[in-house]
């Protein structure tokens, strides 16, 4: 039986088909059921569609003002919750006047009971106009439906259209209320389509080059995008459009102009790549920059596409010289450690092989909050026999897995992290990272270091008071810094 019903799930047997234990001999189609509604009250880790749209996709833009059409909560919760920094640089060479604008401000309509009764469109309109006055710097205004405004049926597109003319800048409505779809994934989908429908093709870039790419589905979490950008720059490749980390409103409007689109997060952003390809004939490739091997492989692919093979090799060689020896150290330390990858989606398949091959770890379970079938195909392909693949895991399942399998480390979100700790298992945040970036060569080293620091945190050997400790055998931690070994400290006289 490839599917597994957890003890904890015996009262909700519908969970069985979401938990798949890999068997090599299974037909391809056997994999976790996914992208379906969560069982109420089951302690899912999932979020809502609004979070998927604003929290993931659009919130990363550096020059856009957001007006959430909601009772105050949705606005409050979307205030800078993601860790995507921005630089002030604009495509025309000027600087956006407010640093980290996207982390600093979020606007909302603060819907009251009367609006629920009489409709909130007036309030929305007034709020957008006021917000625009408050931040004239913003190059566009995006506004969001939420459960309340979705249910009362405010026609946000109409307001957006009217105000686009009135304010002389794009006002775009995103109709992804919280209840839409089974998870935040629906919000990604809606945001992709909205951006494509409303924006792509509406502007032209100041100039183009034969080496322009679009980087799609990279949100610059903890600076990930900047790592990739440095590789591309060294290779002679320009990112013409970012979707949407450290990006600008205008870049979205000319997403039809790159020579090639690179799809980094294939769950949240393949939609728009497809749409652009279909309408504008811009080809795309799905890329994977997690770990040194994938990163090298994908840089080579891109290099080949642009005839920049040598440049790609140079980037790879440079970086490997820097990170290789330290990674060796960590591999030695991480060898055989059991690890779970509980990601939102793609990281569960991005990281499975690298953690095994490059760091010698033993991935014994992967899970995802909102993956679709294509993602689980890859996950299944990339994990070993016997590994659990869990769709939309809930906290009792999480506890059961820990008790049964006793992993050494769990990569998960902040909601799981502290629960894992209470059960005695280290956990690091894989959605937004501990000390990122985690992408690329340096990023993979950061990930290795964070995993090492967590597994070898001396406290894990001291969790329980010992009445009779066993002699001198106590926790040891070694520095992962290679530098240090060569560099004996000087003596002060």
């Amino acid at each position, binding site marked *: 039986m490839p599917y597994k019903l957890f003890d*904890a*799930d015996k*009262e909700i047997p519908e969970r069985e088909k979401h938990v798949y234990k890999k068997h090599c001999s299974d037909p391809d189609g056997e994999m976790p059921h996914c992208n379906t509604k*969560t069982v*109420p*009250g*089951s302690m899912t*880790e999932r*979020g*809502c*569609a*609004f979070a998927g749209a604003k929290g993931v996709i659009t919130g990363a833009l550096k020059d856009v003002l957001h*007006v959430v059409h*909601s*009772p*105050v*909560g*949705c606005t*409050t*919760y979307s*205030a800078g*919750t993601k860790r995507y920094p921005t630089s002030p640089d604009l495509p025309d060479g000027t600087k956006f006047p407010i640093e*980290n604008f996207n*982390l*600093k*401000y*979020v*606007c909302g*309509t*603060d*819907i009251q*009971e009367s*609006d*629920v009764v009489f409709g909130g469109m007036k*309030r929305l309109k*007034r*709020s957008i106009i006021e*917000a625009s006055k*408050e931040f004239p710097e913003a190059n566009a205004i995006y506004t969001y439906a939420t*459960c*309340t405004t*979705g*249910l009362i049926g405010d026609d946000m597109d109409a307001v957006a259209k009217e105000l686009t003319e009135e304010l002389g800048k794009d006002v775009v409505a995103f109709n992804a*209320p*919280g*209840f*839409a779809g*089974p998870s935040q994934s629906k919000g990604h989908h809606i945001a992709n389509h909205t951006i494509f429908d409303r924006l792509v093709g509406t502007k032209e870039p100041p100039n183009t080059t034969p080496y322009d790419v679009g980087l799609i589905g990279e949100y610059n979490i903890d600076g990930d995008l900047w790592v990739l950008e440095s590789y591309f720059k060294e290779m002679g490749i320009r990112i013409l459009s970012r979707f949407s980390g450290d990006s600008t409103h205008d870049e979205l409007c000319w997403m039809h102009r790159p020579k090639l689109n690179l799809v980094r997060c294939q769950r949240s952003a393949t939609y728009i790549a497809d749409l652009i390809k279909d309408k504008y004939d811009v080809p795309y490739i799905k890329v994977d920059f997690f770990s040194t091997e994938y990163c090298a492989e994908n840089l080579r692919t891109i290099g080949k596409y642009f005839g920049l093979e040598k440049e790609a090799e140079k980037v790879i060689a440079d970086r490997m010289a820097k990170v290789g020896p330290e990674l060796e150290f960590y591999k030695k330390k991480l060898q055989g450690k059991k690890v779970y990858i509980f990601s939102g989606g793609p990281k569960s398949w991005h990281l499975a092989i690298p953690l095994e091959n490059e760091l010698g770890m033993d991935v014994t379970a992967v899970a995802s909050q909102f993956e679709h079938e294509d993602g689980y195909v890859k996950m299944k392909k990339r994990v070993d026999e016997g590994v659990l693949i869990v769709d939309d895991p809930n*906290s*009792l399942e999480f*506890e059961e897995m820990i008790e049964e399998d006793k992993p050494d480390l769990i990569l998960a979100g*902040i*909601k799981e*992290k502290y*629960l894992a700790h*209470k*059960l*005695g298992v280290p956990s690091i945040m894989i959605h937004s990272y501990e000390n990122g970036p985690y992408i690329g060569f340096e990023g993979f080293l950061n990930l290795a270091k964070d995993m090492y620091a967590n597994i070898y945190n001396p406290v894990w050997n001291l*969790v*329980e008071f010992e009445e009779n400790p066993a002699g001198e055998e106590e926790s040891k931690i070694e520095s992962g810094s290679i530098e240090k070994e060569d560099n004996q400290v000087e003596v002060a006289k």
Partner: protein
Amino acid sequence: MSGINVIKRERNVIINPLKTCQPLGAMFAVMGVHHGFPLVHGSQGCSTFVRYNFARHFREPAEIAVSSLHEDAAVFGGRKNISSGIKNLAVRFKPDLIGAITTCSSEIIGDDVFGFVDTTKKELKTMSEDNKGLDKIEVIPIATPSFVGNHFTGYDVGVKALVDNLAEPGEPTEKVNIIPGIVNPGDIREIKHILELMGIEGTMLTDTSDPFDSPLRPSVTPTRPYFPKGGTTVDEIRDSANSQGTIAMCKYAGSAATSLEKQHNVPAIIETPPIGLQNTDQFLRNLKKLTDCNIPDSILDERGMLVDLIADNASRYLFDKKVAIFGDPDITTGLARFVGEIGMEPTMVCTGANSNSFPEDMEKISKETGTDIDVLFEQDMRSFEVYIKENPVDLMIGTSDGRLLSLDQGIPLIRAGFPVYDRIGYHRHPIVGYNGAMRLMELITNAVLERYYDPTHWKLQQ
């Protein structure tokens, strides 16, 4: 004469809110029940965002269930969601209590949550024939539409719902009920410490201290399901009807106290939290009033330690410094008074809620401290920021949401209130009681020393 200048938000748009919606408060209240489980009847974001916020502030697990409302519920109603949510929670987690908390969506689609809960409870009773104990699980419906009130009123509604549903008359006890407000584990522990010194048994309505700050001890931690230590037991809440009195140490979330008074003749005192010297004095007097206990020397010694700390340092380092305070209405009221007690000037106090007597209280503090106070009322962090840029202060006190402004303007931020996520340990320490005031005094003074005295470091030689 000193006075206040009330500055309300004039724009409609809210920018960086200083409040959130009701359900969070209700969830917080339910988290303080021993083996209590909040079940939010709404979209998944309604639980996930709140769990995220609790997790980053307390650095603890925050188990909150959700009924996962979707499009179909908008059409057919959410009965199935809430009902199966309750049942699933009940059979899989066997909690002592489930708080069924409404949201904007469940209210708009018109779900009769009270009715649904009743029906579900009956079903649980039937199910308990095969599955023992399910009928013992309390299920409390809590109506907290997000488009009414704010997190503070949600907390108020939550505590009141618990008490109204559970409190039952019995033998009178010597206990005192305390409604802590949305405060930290450290605050509740300080209140318990005071009660212990006073020899009073207290019932926290509710007690979030251990649930939000529990030891890491796998060997004794219950799993499958994991429940944190502590919380007020359902029986204790039942017994709250028989206490000598109730003190709501939150002026704006005391309706459970009123309810206990009306329904069970438990005298109610609803007041600003005991932040600072005079407010803590008042808290002690209130305890004495309700219980006729003595104020023991041990607590007066703690008071004396605070007095000593202020006498030795306040006029030397803090006098005349201007302070801007932002956050929840209760905490900011207490902080403003304390800041005056140590000779600083609370020149601006900003809150996001519309708690009605807030301006009056500021008026009193203005008179008492001799400071003109600009009261930013029903405001947001954007207004706070604009004000500060035009009217610089020496110090800000408030949540971590002021951190970027603090960095930009070079004005130290003393972290207090909820949420504090960019420093560690704040939830462990009180700001209430004499010990809380000592902590505040230390935080404030050390921030002033670092920012304003380190540059003339010789002044710190002695």
